[in-house]
């Protein structure tokens, strides 16, 4: 049976290893898609709708084409079709400089008939609102209803009830590197695209299909990339446009989205509104849960949030409705549906606990069936000092008040089939590991090096890892669902093991020992029954002469496992005069099975916490009902956490078993509820709407006083 071995036997796996690409990234040597420049390259830009709803009557590109330096102009929408949100693509240009491309966009005349629009959910749901989707009744989808147990009976058993409405606004991904591509055709049949993508092979296959090319004649390269969070699984309109402009002009074209484009069209996390009524028994069992809710993800679906979440409730009914508005569409965003759902559920849990006169931690213990989280609760309470918690929310007379709260989450991970990899040992001792996955920033490059280095008794820096390129023809899936490491690691491990076996077979005669007796040391290979029989790695590989050993691997069920739990505790300080919230500390405890690299796993937890904190305290898309426009499609008014917002984060990798699972998404889930509950604990007044900005805090405090 394949296994990752015992922790005590691991030299590298599970230890802290510095990211292989770290130095290149901080020195600027690492080249992102944005940094790729090709000989004679042109610059592409996309003309986008400035209105939220209109029918296109005509597009006149003559003036743009006549502008010196403009090489191509292509339409991206057919005449007669509808534009349904600000930012929707109309045409694209390629020009000698980015400035010329930008000027050219302004010369394109679009004749359109503007249509009535709705950009806020309340407007969309109002009586008599203009209907913006022909296939729905009004602007709401049919409800999605789920039922379990008997709600009536549940409420009869309940000793306390809470009825409340929770809301989170639309959040955008804010990838630091915007979406974009550099496309270059070698000839009419061969296309190379540098893409800022989280799916190298998915992007390759999409482009091949779009241009009707054999898949192996499209090459996609993603050496380094600056964030995707679920929004970069394919080339999208802009990728097709870049490749088409390159095809027409016969020249490489770079087309990167602007920051404004990124906010408008590159995806978002839908909003959530939940009206909940829930009950618990006098001994603290969550017994009944009734929820009606809605959310918008633009003109597509939106109400994908989780409800109920994490905690066990035997009797529930949920009803969710998607609301359509004239705004850019949602895309998967780090743990889709979970952070919003967790926020509402964790607030509700605290509200019920308070009605029961119970410590919220105890109330969770009663209703949580996960043994892992039970252990995490104990550890988290210790780490944050839960006993110091304000036992009377809002008590005390000081201006700055402190409070603590907690939240929980779960996720799947566990990986899947579909990755091919190859590990090669060369006669000069060098080692290569190649696969078609991509390093989304999670550190898979380093994880691969660790696995191979562990197997061969080498250092991670001895391994040349090649990822982010479709050319070697070793496919791997997109980086989504926290699946990358669990999908790739088993294949790399088995490939390395096979290569090692081959090497042992070659050198066994030299060491005059049977293959089964050979082991790797540190840079050496020795005979286990007679340790005086040792040769160095270089001596061993020297035996290969002009040959190399190159082995593929297989996915192995035994090396991975799905399902993780997480819990976070927050301590905050609220300035009751300014309404400002300072998060002092977050204790984030997450299991991910076997953490191949403890350092990047901790980084992943830190990053998730920061993202969750942004959603809790700052982030919100503002849509103006008068103009139909997003008013904060920038990084001045769309506020993301900066250095001043980052608290002390204690990231704890909670070891459970030694099979690979995944950690990409889960750490951004529990943060929202933990912070919101801590704020309540500090000030004694509940704010059920995110983000927790000073206006909401001050209004809540004023209401409490009144």
């Amino acid at each position, binding site marked *: 049976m394949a296994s990752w071995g015992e922790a005590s036997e691991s030299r590298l796996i599970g230890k802290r290893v510095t990211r292989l690409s770290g130095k290149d990234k901080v020195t600027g040597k690492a080249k992102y898609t944005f940094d790729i420049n090709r000989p004679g390259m042109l610059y592409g830009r996309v003309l986008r709708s*400035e209105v939220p709803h209109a029918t296109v009557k005509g597009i006149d590109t003559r003036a743009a084409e006549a502008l010196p330096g403009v090489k191509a102009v292509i339409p991206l929408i057919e005449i007669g079709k509808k534009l349904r949100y600000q930012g929707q693509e109309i045409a694209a240009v390629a020009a000698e400089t980015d400035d010329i491309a930008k000027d050219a966009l302004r010369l394109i005349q679009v004749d359109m008939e503007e249509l009535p629009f709705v950009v806020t959910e309340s407007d969309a749901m109002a009586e008599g609102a203009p209907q913006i989707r022909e296939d729905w009744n009004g602007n709401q989808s049919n409800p999605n209803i789920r039922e379990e147990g008997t709600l009536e009976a549940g409420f009869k058993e309940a000793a306390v009830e809470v009825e409340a409405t929770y809301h989170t606004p639309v959040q955008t991904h804010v990838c630091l590197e915007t979406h974009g591509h550099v496309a270059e055709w070698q000839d009419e049949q061969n296309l190379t695209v540098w893409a800022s993508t989280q799916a190298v092979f998915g992007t390759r296959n999409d482009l091949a299909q779009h241009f009707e090319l054999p898949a192996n004649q499209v090459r996609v390269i993603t050496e380094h990339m600056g964030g995707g969070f679920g929004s970069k699984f394919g080339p999208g309109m802009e990728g097709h446009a870049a490749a088409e402009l390159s095809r027409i002009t016969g020249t490489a074209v770079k087309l990167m989205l602007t920051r404004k484009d990124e906010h408008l069209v590159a995806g978002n996390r839908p909003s959530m509104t939940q009206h909940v009524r829930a009950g618990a028994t006098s001994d603290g069992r969550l017994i009944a849960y009734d929820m009606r809710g809605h959310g918008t993800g633009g003109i597509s679906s939106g109400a994908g949030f989780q409800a109920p979440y994490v905690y066990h409730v035997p009797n529930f009914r949920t009803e969710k409705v998607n609301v359509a508005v004239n705004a850019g569409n949602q895309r998967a965003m780090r743990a889709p549906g979970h952070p919003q759902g967790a926020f509402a559920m964790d607030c509700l849990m605290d509200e019920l606990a308070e009605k029961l006169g119970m410590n919220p931690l105890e109330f969770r213990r009663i209703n949580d069936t996960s043994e892992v989280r039970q252990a995490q609760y104990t550890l988290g309470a210790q780490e944050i000092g839960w006993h110091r918690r304000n036992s009377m929310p809002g008590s005390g007379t000081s201006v700055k008040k402190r409070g603590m709260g907690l939240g929980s989450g779960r996720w799947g991970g566990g990986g899947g089939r579909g990755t091919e990899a190859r590990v090669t040992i060369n006669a000069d001792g060098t080692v290569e590991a190649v696969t078609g996955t991509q390093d989304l920033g999670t550190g898979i490059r380093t994880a691969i090096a660790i696995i191979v280095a562990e197997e061969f008794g080498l250092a991670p820096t001895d391994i040349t890892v090649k990822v982010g390129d479709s050319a070697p023809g070793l496919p791997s899936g997109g980086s989504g669902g926290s699946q990358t490491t669990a999908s790739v690691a088993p294949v790399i491990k088995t490939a390395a093991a096979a290569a090692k076996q081959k090497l042992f077979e070659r050198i066994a005669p030299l060491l005059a020992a049977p293959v089964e007796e050979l082991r790797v040391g540190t840079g050496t290979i020795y005979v286990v029954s007679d340790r005086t029989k040792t040769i160095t790695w270089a001596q061993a590989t020297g035996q290969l002469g002009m040959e190399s050993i190159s082995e593929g691997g297989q996915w192995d069920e035994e090396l991975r496992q799905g399902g993780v739990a997480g819990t976070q505790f927050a301590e905050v300080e609220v300035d009751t*005069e*300014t*309404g*400002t919230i300072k998060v002092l500390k977050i204790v984030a405890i997450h299991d991910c099975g076997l953490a191949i690299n403890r350092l990047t796993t901790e980084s992943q937890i830190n990053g998730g916490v920061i993202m969750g904190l942004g959603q809790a305290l*700052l982030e919100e898309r*503002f849509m*103006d*009902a*008068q*103009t139909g*426009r997003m*008013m*904060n499609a920038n990084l*001045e*008014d769309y*506020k993301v*956490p*900066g*250095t*001043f*917002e980052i608290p002390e984060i204690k990231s704890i990798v909670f070891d459970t078993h030694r099979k690979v699972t995944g950690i990409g998404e889960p750490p951004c889930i529990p943060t929202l509820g933990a912070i919101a509950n801590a704020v309540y604990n500090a000030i004694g007044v509940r704010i059920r709407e995110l983000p927790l*900005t*000073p*206006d*909401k805090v*001050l*209004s809540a405090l*004023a209401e409490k006083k009144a």
Partner: protein
Amino acid sequence: MEKFSYVNATNLEQVTSLLNDSGWGEVMVIAGGTDLLGELKEYVETPKTLVNLKTLPGMDSIAADATGLKIGALTTVADIAMHPTIQRHYTVLAQAAASVATPQIRNVGTLGGNLCQRPRCWYYRDETVDCLKKGGEICYAVEGLNKYHAILGGDPVYIVHPSDIAPALIALGATIKIAGPEGEKTMAVEEFFTLPATNPFRENVLEPNEIVVEVQVPQPKPNTKSLYLKAREKGAPDFALASVAGVFEMSGSTCNTASIVLGGVAPAPWRSKEAEAALTGKMISEAVSKQAGADAVKDAQPLNDNEYKVVLTQNLISRAAMMAAHA
């Protein structure tokens, strides 16, 4: 941005003559460019000519003596924030400057640019929205998204003045020197800024052919305490939701005179005579400071989403007074 020609300024006469007769927007001056470039990139402004003031000699330094300060308009915000004399004797000014934006922007942005910067209102900064300030029919903030807008002195335009430095200068009784075709003139910084009722299109008295050349700040009396408090949603960079520049001349915990100027709540830096009156001649107690805060906002007219600014402003004023008296 649109194409423009670029002229390096050599002397004030040349600048005012280049600006002459062209009205607003055709010829514009640029200093650090941290504000103007944003407007150019968004096509909010499309000048034909930019006059670079940074090449004007002798306008980028701070002179301090016993009578006060002379700060050239091209002095960077960072130089003001880090000047030892300003930190010591003009604390409110150093603190206000230090609260501006980020280190990068403070290293480049100038005093003149800070005082003459244009509104941050998101309707104003959106090229496609033709609002009242830009010559259109309505102020979109009135019925729209107005969380960051004015609670005082609004009508008919509800921007807030974005400068952190201006309230501090007014609280210190500073004067401003302006150069125009007829030569130079000096006026109180307080008189420099105007409300939309006077002129909805501009935020100060400058004519299209005038520029700011210097600011003079009288040395505060001994026993003066001064401070700047700024509330914001985010540590940096972020503009003020509300701010208070307070200059207090004290005898022990009794306030002889107080200057209270608010930022982030009105279309111009807002001197609160009411708060000053409530503090002057009083022993600063919690009750007195609270009264000053309440008096300052009694005429506030919040819009849909900015009522919180009323209590926020009130709290900042009383906190400032308490800190001056007791910290």
